[in-house]
């Protein structure tokens, strides 16, 4: 009896699960455990993973699904983190392009390898180009470092042949379905697939199956079973077949599953089932389930923080339009965001930021290496222009390289002449690509010992790590996978980091221009004026000294110019005073007001924040404030000057309002502002006296004091 079906009525899936998967020695005991109790154990850090795996092997698919369905999204994430087989997280990427251009495949494979993908997978726009894709990616993946596993997703028999020729090192398109009818429409049975699994093992090629919610739905025969229950059947089958792992969590079926209420949670539950059954899990996050960037980010986050054997079973390492599997959840467009997410959460998503110049070097090396192989093996003589166009391209729209038809001819030649990886390695060596030859040989050599056939195996730093020698032993805080200090530094090194040096460097670029526009002449200590026409503009310590433009990008000379003009236009006398005892806008303004004969002062920081103050007011109770410097325009500063003059004349002007349209000013500018402000505060001195500043606007007539 299995999930309400008598043995005599077993369909082929029931039979296979009962015969090859379920551990009958413990089944009775495990099935007797209440589902709620097992569910609690899944999230109990005191219950070891190994105990839970034993329980899973005694449960039927329906019971497995019932247990997991008791968990909420957070519990599923936690249980996944605890149950996944290998300790160190990894990632897999797609390397394809819209033209099946082998040169671009080589360059993009090298790029993906540099970012740290443990596995790369290619497929074709035109299926007969498989051999060309395989050679190109194998060569590209050998550039820079060794050990990236490679898969050429194609027709099953052909994929195996490409593996046997030594080009690919793993396979994952061996699909499994949860109902008999769907399985048969997929043109296979559990036995034929298990036979294929044995065939891959016999050739020393790593293999995992593919399953996932929605496939039975899309293929029309779901037998009214829940998505999770169907997937539990698939996973039990896979373990029964003796496959080391799975690619699940809705692969091609993910988009349809994500349309169902709770669908995304269901996908996570599927992945949990896989790792609970002790299978390697390439955890979906593959087909793009939505066009919403918020939903994309939300979808990936649980996996990023939980870690996974392969977080994506196909992160599109190329731009969306070049992804021949169809766009992934994450693609080249989102790569930087993913790297930043790793940094934000100090979470290891398997990738490492790489500098642009390094990527360019590797891309050049990859196309040169492949061109050498093509020339040596008389597969083609790519022109210099083709190579150049590929090195610099972000996608196939920008290349002048091989077309799909060219790739077909190359592919056919490779196949007809029975070229194997041995000839490719020799060709690389003959042309001086020794490191690449060495790297490619190292990957092919993996298959002799077969260490990477064990569960969850990848290669890191030339060593095979898997669930056998790097098992996940999570047992609470401080245990399991932790980002090490060196790894944290790697993750943190994203591009375009802003530091004070960078801020000063960019300011220095504006310094020369400002010197042609304005002269600041430091005069005597500033004193309180008795003239009622006098309005003081208090500038900050670094104003025109180390900082030369507002964060809105306006030259300080221009800002100061329009303000003084506006004050003078009302017949008043603008006076510029530099304060060094403070860099705070309010105090700059208040101190300026106290020195002014009119009692009205303007505080102006170099970053462009400005305030109108009056001598008798409390420091933070000013007359007008421009706090959003990034969006404050020159015209606003002119109006501020005019309003200061109006207050000095005893009028009550309309306050100047800088319109704000909801820009996230803090996230856009606060890092820069913090550094700019640090430059200001570094120049302050506690007892420094305010100083009269004679301002001369060069290239125009103006007052000089």
């Amino acid at each position, binding site marked *: 009896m299995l999930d309400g079906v008598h043995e005599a009525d077993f369909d082929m899936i029931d039979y296979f699960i009962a015969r090859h998967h379920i551990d009958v020695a413990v089944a009775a005991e495990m099935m007797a455990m209440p589902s709620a109790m097992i569910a609690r154990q899944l999230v109990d850090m005191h219950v070891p993973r*190994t105990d839970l795996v034993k329980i899973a092997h005694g449960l039927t698919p329906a019971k497995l699904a019932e247990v997991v369905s008791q968990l909420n999204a957070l519990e599923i994430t936690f249980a996944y983190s605890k149950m996944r087989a290998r300790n160190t997280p990894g990632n897999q990427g797609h390397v394809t392009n819209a033209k099946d251009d082998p040169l671009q495949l080589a360059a993009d494979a090298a790029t993906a390898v540099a970012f740290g993908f443990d596995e790369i997978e290619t497929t074709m726009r035109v299926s007969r180009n498989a051999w060309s894709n395989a050679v190109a990616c194998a060569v590209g993946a050998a550039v820079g470092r060794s050990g990236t596993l490679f898969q050429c997703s194609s027709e099953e028999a052909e994929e195996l042949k490409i593996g046997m020729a030594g080009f690919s090192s793993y396979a994952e398109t061996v699909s499994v379905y949860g109902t008999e009818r769907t399985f048969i429409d997929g043109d296979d049975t559990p036995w*034929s697939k298990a036979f294929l699994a*044995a065939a891959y*093992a016999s050739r020393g090629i790593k293999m995992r199956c593919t399953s996932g919610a929605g496939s039975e739905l899309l293929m029309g025969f779901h037998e009214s079973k829940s998505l999770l229950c169907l997937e539990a059947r698939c996973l039990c089958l896979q373990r029964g077949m003796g496959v080391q792992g799975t690619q699940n969590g809705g692969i091609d079926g993910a988009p349809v599953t994500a349309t169902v209420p709770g669908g995304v949670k269901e996908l996570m539950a599927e992945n949990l089932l896989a790792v609970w059954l002790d299978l390697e899990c390439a955890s979906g996050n593959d087909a793009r389930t939505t066009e919403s960037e918020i939903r994309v980010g939300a979808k990936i986050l649980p996996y990023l923080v939980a870690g996974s054997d392969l977080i994506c079973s196909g992160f599109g390492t190329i731009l969306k339009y070049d992804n021949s599997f169809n766009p992934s959840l994450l693609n080249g467009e989102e790569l930087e965001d993913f790297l930043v997410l790793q940094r934000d959460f100090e979470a290891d998503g398997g990738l490492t930021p790489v500098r642009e110049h390094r990527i360019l070097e590797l891309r050049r090396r990859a196309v040169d290496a492949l061109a050498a192989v093509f020339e040596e093996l008389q597969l083609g003589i790519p022109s210099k222009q083709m190579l150049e166009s590929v090195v610099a391209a972000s996608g196939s729209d920008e290349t002048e390289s091989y077309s799909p038809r060219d790739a077909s001819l190359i592919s056919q030649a490779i196949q007809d002449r029975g070229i194997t990886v041995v000839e490719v390695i020799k060709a690389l060596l003959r042309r001086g690509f020794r490191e690449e030859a060495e790297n490619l040989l190292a990957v092919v050599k993996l298959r002799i010992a077969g260490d990477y056939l064990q569960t969850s195996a990848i290669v890191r730093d030339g060593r095979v790590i898997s669930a056998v020698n790097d098992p996940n032993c999570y047992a609470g805080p401080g245990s399991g996978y932790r980002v090490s200090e060196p790894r944290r530094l790697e993750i943190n090194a994203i591009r375009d980091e802003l530091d004070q040096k960078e801020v000063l460097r960019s300011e220095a670029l504006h310094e020369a221009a400002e010197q042609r526009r304005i002269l600041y002449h430091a005069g005597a200590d500033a004193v309180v004026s008795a003239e009622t026409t006098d309005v003081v503009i208090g500038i900050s310590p670094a104003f025109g000294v180390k900082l030369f433009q507002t964060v809105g990008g306006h030259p300080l000379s221009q800002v100061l110019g329009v303000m003084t003009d506006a004050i003078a236009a009302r017949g008043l006398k603008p006076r510029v005073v530099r304060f060094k005892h403070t860099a705070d806008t309010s105090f700059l303004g208040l101190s300026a007001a106290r020195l002014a004969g009119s009692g009205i002062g303007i505080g102006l920081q170099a970053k462009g924040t400005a305030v109108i103050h009056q001598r008798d007011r409390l420091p933070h109770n000013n007359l007008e404030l421009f706090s959003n410097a990034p969006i404050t325009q020159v015209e606003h500063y002119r109006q501020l000057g005019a309003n200061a003059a109006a207050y000095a004349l005893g009028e009550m002007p309309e306050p100047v309002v800088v319109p704000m349209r909801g820009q996230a000013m803090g996230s856009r500018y606060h890092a820069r502002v913090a550094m700019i402000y640090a430059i200001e505060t570094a120049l302050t001195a506690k007892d420094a006296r305010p100083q009269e500043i004679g301002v001369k606007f060069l290239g125009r007539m103006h007052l000089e004091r």
Partner: protein
Amino acid sequence: MSDNLTIEDYPLSEKRPELIAGQRGKKLSDITLDTLVSGEVQMEDLRITSQALHYQAEIARAAGRPTLAENFERGAELVGVPEEVIMQVYELLRPGRAADKSVLIEAAKLLRRDYGAAKLADFMEEAAEVYERRGLFTYRF
């Protein structure tokens, strides 16, 4: 083998390289760019042996993965089976390919006789039984 390998022996290429050799007896350390260029090492030397798969099966069992071990053992039986035969048998196992049970039973017999593939033969006989019961020998148009 009296003493089975354990997870301590894994990875074999690092911990027990002396146990590993290619199909013509080449050790891992004999397989280098130089020996490849000289022609001493060829594609056959870059293939796994049934012995290595049996070792990996022992490790898988020691790690608590009996089904994975069985797959490795079935794989070990296929190491010496030529690609064409593998593809023929795979094709026969797909639904509707064999007209009746006897075709699969014959193929199983051949695997057992010619290649000593006892486990695979059993596996195919089991498939034949199930296919018959579930009507999978029906020709699919």
